[in-house]
């Protein structure tokens, strides 16, 4: 019972959350043709709202985002392809306007960076653990040398100390 109630509550939260972003696009902005409107939504999701910076224009309530959505729709109606619209925006706002950065020389660090870091971290971890297990397996004793036996002289001194609790000097 409780489990079902929880599942229902979770489903409700997810449904509400999923529905929220759609509200930015007002009914009066939409294109009559559902196919064209779907393309407009698709393109809008790839464009950054340049005012709010971390939102796409499809989800943003900023006024400039609304105007950009209308420009996107305008260009769709005029026959631009999705890529042409993205190029149009890049020509004005730079690559920054694309939420997914383009793959080119200046962005290689961005694309390969995480993989490189992962490999680097993996390599370091591998080297570290291999060394450690090697140290523990074969030369664990060598790492901490065993105490050498006492020389006869030392043993005599120890015996003397144990016997009367005083150093030889006193």
């Amino acid at each position, binding site marked *: 019972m409780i489990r079902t109630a929880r599942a229902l509550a979770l489903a409700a939260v997810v449904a509400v959350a999923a529905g929220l972003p759609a509200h930015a696009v007002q009914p009066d902005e939409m294109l009559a043709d559902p196919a064209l409107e779907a393309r407009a939504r698709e393109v809008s999701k790839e464009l950054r709202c340049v005012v709010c910076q971390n939102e796409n224009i499809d989800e943003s309530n900023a006024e*400039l985002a609304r*105007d950009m959505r209308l420009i996107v729709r305008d260009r769709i109606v005029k026959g631009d392809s999705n890529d042409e619209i993205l190029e149009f925006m890049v020509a004005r706002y*730079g690559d920054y306007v694309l939420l997914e950065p383009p793959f080119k020389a200046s962005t290689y660090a961005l694309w390969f960076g995480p993989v490189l870091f992962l490999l680097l971290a993996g390599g*370091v971890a591998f080297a570290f653990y291999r060394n450690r297990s090697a140290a523990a397996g074969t030369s664990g004793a060598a790492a901490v*040398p065993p105490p*050498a*036996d006492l020389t006869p002289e030392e043993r005599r001194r120890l015996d003397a100390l144990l016997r009367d609790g005083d150093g030889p000097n006193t």
Partner: protein
Amino acid sequence: MSDIRTDTAPAAADPGPQKMGWGRRLIFIAPTLVFVVLLGFFLKQLGEDPSQLPSVLIDRPVPAFALDPLPGRGMALSSEDLKGDVSLVNIFGSWCVACQVEHPYLMKIKESGYVAIHGIDWREKDPMDGKRWLEKYGDPYTRVGLDPDSRVAVDFGVTGAPETFVVDKTGVIRYKHIGPVTDEVFEKTLKPLIEELRKS
């Protein structure tokens, strides 16, 4: 048993630390290196305002446009008007608070007669709002065009108001200033640039 205590015992212990040497060292060096590199990036970013996007339009001709004038004001603005002399193109709006901060400075520039300032009145809900605003605070502009739906603002890659573009004699965008043009901005940045552009 005393023969165990020889000089070879400490020597045998040596290869241990030495063999672990570079692996171990890497463990310490790699994070330090990464930290230093990241620190460098962060320090560089620290002084920068993330909203100050570099404009891709620098050294490109102004986008072709022709805007309507403010009601009853005349002197509309089009891209053709930006050829002939160096000029400033200022994006503003009566709704824009930072534009009010900037306004007295623009008035001073106008009074000095140093350079013509053209205005793009951006996203005005009612064209009269812009007109009344200029009547109230003064009108520093030579020409003003209305851009209610951001068509021209987007062509200029505008992200917010105020923004000010320096346009050279041939109608090519040479500089973009984001935020209010203050005395300091004008004297230190815009004026020297305008002077240089006039010579060429």
